[in-house]
C-alpha cells in the first residue's frame, strides 16, 4: 500500500508539494512508517504568504466578534475529535495517551482564550487630554505572521499563536516540525472544516528552506518559534535584520530546589512528572534536582526519587499501563546517550542507568530509554549546564538557599525554576531573587495557562513579548494613537 504523503494547505486548498524530497515519519514506539512529509521549496512558502497577504484586508475588516465565532466553531470540532487528535500525537511523537490528551486540552484552551478577543483586543482612551481634545489608543492587526513549530508539543505549540493571531485580524502560516507534522495536518483539516476564508490560515511543510523564507519574506510581519537556543538566537538575529517581530522561545535547563523541610512524599509525584513526563522532552521539564540540606536529608530525597524513577513503566504510549513513552527519534536517543557518556567521563555517578532497557511489550529499542539519575553532579559539569532533552535527571547539592540560587544563576538558561518547601520566607526569597521566566512553588511543571504569558529569560527566550495571554495579543497588534478635536 502506498504511504500517505502529507499535503500543504494554501489559500484554502490542500495541494501536493512540488518537491521530490520527503521525510519519513516514523512512530518512535513501534518503528512503523506513518506517512511522508514534504520538504517544500521556498516558492511554495511564497505562494502561501501571497495567499495570506491577499486574504488580510478582508479578514482584518471582519468584525472581531465574527472572527471569534470561527474560533468557537473550531473548539466544537476539536472537542468532537478530541481522542483522534490525541492518538495522532502519540503515534507521531511517542508520548503517552494521557500526555497527548493533556496536550489536546491545552491546545483547545488557547482557542478558548483567543476567542475572547472582542474584549482582550480593546484599546483605551482619555477624554480632555487638553480642553476639548480626546486621545485614544486602538490596537490593529499588522498582516501575515508565521509559526516555526517544534516536535515536542507538535499539536499545542502552534496554538499558542495561531488562534490569537487570526482573532486579532492577522493571517497566519504554520511550518510544522518535519519530525512530527501529522497533528498540524489534523488541525488544518479542522480549520478547513470551520470555513475560514481562503488564505487566512496556511500550512507549509518543510525544513530550513521554509523557515528561512519566513524570516526573509518582505510581507511576513513577524515570526514565532519554539525550539532550541541556537536556532532561536539565529531567528532573533535574522528577523532583526529583516525588521520583523519575533517571539523565540528557546532551550532550558530547569532546576528544582528541594529544601530540608519539603514534604518529599507529597512532592514525589510532581518531581517524577516534571523530570520524566513527555520523556523529558519538555522545555519546562525538571533537569537538575538541587537538594539543600545535610547528608540525611539528601539521602532521603534521592533514594525516594530514584526508587520512584525506577518504577516508571516505559513502552508504547497507546498502552494505558505505560507511564513514559520513547524519545521522539533515534537521533535524539543517540545524542542523549552521548551526553550521558560525557557526564560519566566528567565524574558523575550514574545511580539509575536508563540505558538498561526495561520495556512493556516487545518493541524496537531504537528510541527508548528508561529514566536515568546521575548523582555527584557539580555545577560546572555538562550534565548540570547543557540541555539534554531526555529522561535524565542530574542531582546537585547546595548548603543553603543562597548557594542554590547562585548555582541556578550560573546556568545560561532561565526558563523555569521551582522550589519545594513549607517555609514562606524561603519561598518568597526564591520567587523574588531567582532569574527564571516561570517560577514554581511546590509545583513541578511551571506551565502558564493560556491566559498568562509563557515566560522565559536569558538564553531561554529571545524577544520582548511572550506567547499566550495578553502578551501575545500585544505581539499580534500595533497600537495606534488617535487625538481628536472638533471645531
Amino acid at each position, binding site marked *: 500500500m502506498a504511504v500517505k504523503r502529507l499535503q500543504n494547505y494554501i489559500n484554502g486548498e490542500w495541494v501536493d508539494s512540488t518537491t521530490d524530497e520527503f521525510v519519513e515519519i516514523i512512530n518512535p514506539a513501534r518503528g512503523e512508517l506513518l506517512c511522508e512529509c514534504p520538504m517544500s521549496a521556498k516558492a511554495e512558502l511564497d505562494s502561501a504568504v501571497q495567499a495570506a497577504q491577499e486574504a488580510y484586508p478582508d479578514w482584518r475588516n471582519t468584525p472581531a466578534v465574527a472572527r471569534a465565532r470561527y474560533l468557537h466553531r473550531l473548539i466544537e470540532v476539536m472537542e468532537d475529535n478530541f481522542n483522534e487528535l490525541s492518538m495522532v500525537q502519540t503515534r507521531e511523537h511517542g508520548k*503517552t495517551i*494521557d*500526555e497527548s490528551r*493533556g496536550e489536546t*486540552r491545552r491546545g483547545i484552551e488557547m482557542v478558548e482564550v483567543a476567542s475572547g478577543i472582542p474584549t482582550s483586543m480593546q484599546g483605551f482612551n482619555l477624554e480632555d487630554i487638553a480642553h476639548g481634545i480626546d486621545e485614544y489608543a486602538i490596537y490593529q492587526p499588522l498582516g501575515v505572521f508565521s509559526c516555526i513549530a517544534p516536535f515536542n508539543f507538535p499539536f499545542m505549540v502552534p496554538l499558542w499563536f495561531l488562534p490569537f493571531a487570526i482573532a486579532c485580524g492577522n493571517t497566519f502560516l504554520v511550518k510544522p516540525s518535519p519530525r512530527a507534522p501529522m497533528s498540524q495536518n489534523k488541525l488544518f483539516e479542522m480549520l478547513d472544516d470551520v470555513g475560514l476564508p481562503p488564505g487566512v490560515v496556511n500550512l507549509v511543510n518543510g525544513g530550513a528552506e521554509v523557515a528561512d523564507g519566513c524570516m526573509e519574506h518582505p510581507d511576513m510581519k513577524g515570526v514565532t518559534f519554539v525550539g532550541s537556543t541556537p536556532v532561536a538566537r539565529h531567528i532573533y538575529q535574522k528577523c532583526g535584520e529583516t525588521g520583523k517581530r519575533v517571539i523565540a522561545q528557546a532551550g532550558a535547563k530547569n532546576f528544582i530546589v528541594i529544601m530540608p523541610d519539603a514534604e518529599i512524599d507529597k512532592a514525589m509525584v510532581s518531581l517524577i512528572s516534571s523530570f520524566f*513526563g513527555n520523556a523529558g522532552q519538555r522545555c519546562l521539564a525538571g533537569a537538575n534536582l538541587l537538594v539543600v540540606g545535610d547528608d540525611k536529608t539528601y539521602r532521603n530525597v534521592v533514594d525516594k526519587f530514584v526508587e520512584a524513577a525506577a518504577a516508571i513503566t516505559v513502552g508504547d504510549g497507546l498502552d494505558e*499501563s*505505560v*507511564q513514559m513513552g520513547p524519545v521522539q527519534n533515534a537521533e535524539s536517543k543517540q545524542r542523549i546517550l552521548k551526553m550521558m557518556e560525557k557526564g560519566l567521563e566528567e565524574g558523575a555517578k550514574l545511580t539509575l542507568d536508563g540505558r538498561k532497557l526495561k520495556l512493556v511489550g516487545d518493541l524496537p529499542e531504537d528510541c527508548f530509554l528508561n529514566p536515568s539519575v546521575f548523582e555527584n553532579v557539580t555545577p560546572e559539569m555538562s550534565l548540570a549546564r547543557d540541555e539534554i532533552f531526555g529522561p535524565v535527571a542530574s542531582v546537585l547539592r547546595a548548603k543553603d538557599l543562597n548557594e542554590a540560587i547562585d548555582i541556578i544563576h550560573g546556568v545560561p538558561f532561565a526558563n523555569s525554576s521551582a522550589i519545594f518547601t513549607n517555609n514562606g520566607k524561603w519561598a518568597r526569597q526564591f520567587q523574588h531573587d531567582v532569574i527564571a521566566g516561570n517560577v514554581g512553588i511546590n509545583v513541578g511543571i511551571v506551565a502558564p495557562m493560556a491566559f498568562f504569558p509563557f515566560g522565559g529569560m536569558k538564553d531561554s527566550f529571545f524577544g520582548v513579548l511572550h506567547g499566550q495571554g495578553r502578551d501575545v495579543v500585544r505581539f499580534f497588534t500595533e497600537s495606534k494613537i488617535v487625538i481628536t478635536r472638533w471645531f
Partner: protein
Amino acid sequence: MKLNTMAAVMSFVTRIEEDAASFYEECATQYPNMKDTLLSWSKENRKFEKDVKRTYFGVITDTLESNYAFEGLDTDDYVFETDVPEDTSKVAERAYEIEAKIKAFYLRAAELSEGLMADIPRLFRKIAKKRENRRIPV
C-alpha cells in the same frame, strides 16, 4: 491488573459501569418486579460513566501528574460477579455486592487522586455517595 495511569482508570470506569449496567438490564428482563429500579440504575451508571469521562477530558493537562498518581490501585480488588442469579432473592444481594465494589473503587481512586485534579476526586466521591441510596424495594 495494576491501574497506574489516568487513562487506565478511565477505561476501568467504563468497564465497571458498563458491566454493572448490563447486569441490571438482564436482571430487569428476567425479574419484571424489579424492572423499574434496575433500569433506573443502569441508566444512572451510564450517566456516571459519561460524567467521569467529560470531567477527565475537561481537566486533563499536558503538565499532568496523573501518570504517576495511582500506585496501589488494582483491578483485582474490584472484580464482581455479573451472572444473573437463578433465584430472585439473590438479585438484590448480588447487586449490593456490585455496588459495594464500585463504591470502594471510586473512594480509593478519589483518595489517590486527591490534590491532583480537584474535579476528578470530587466527582468520584459524589458518585460513591449517590450509590449509597441504591435499594431494591422488597
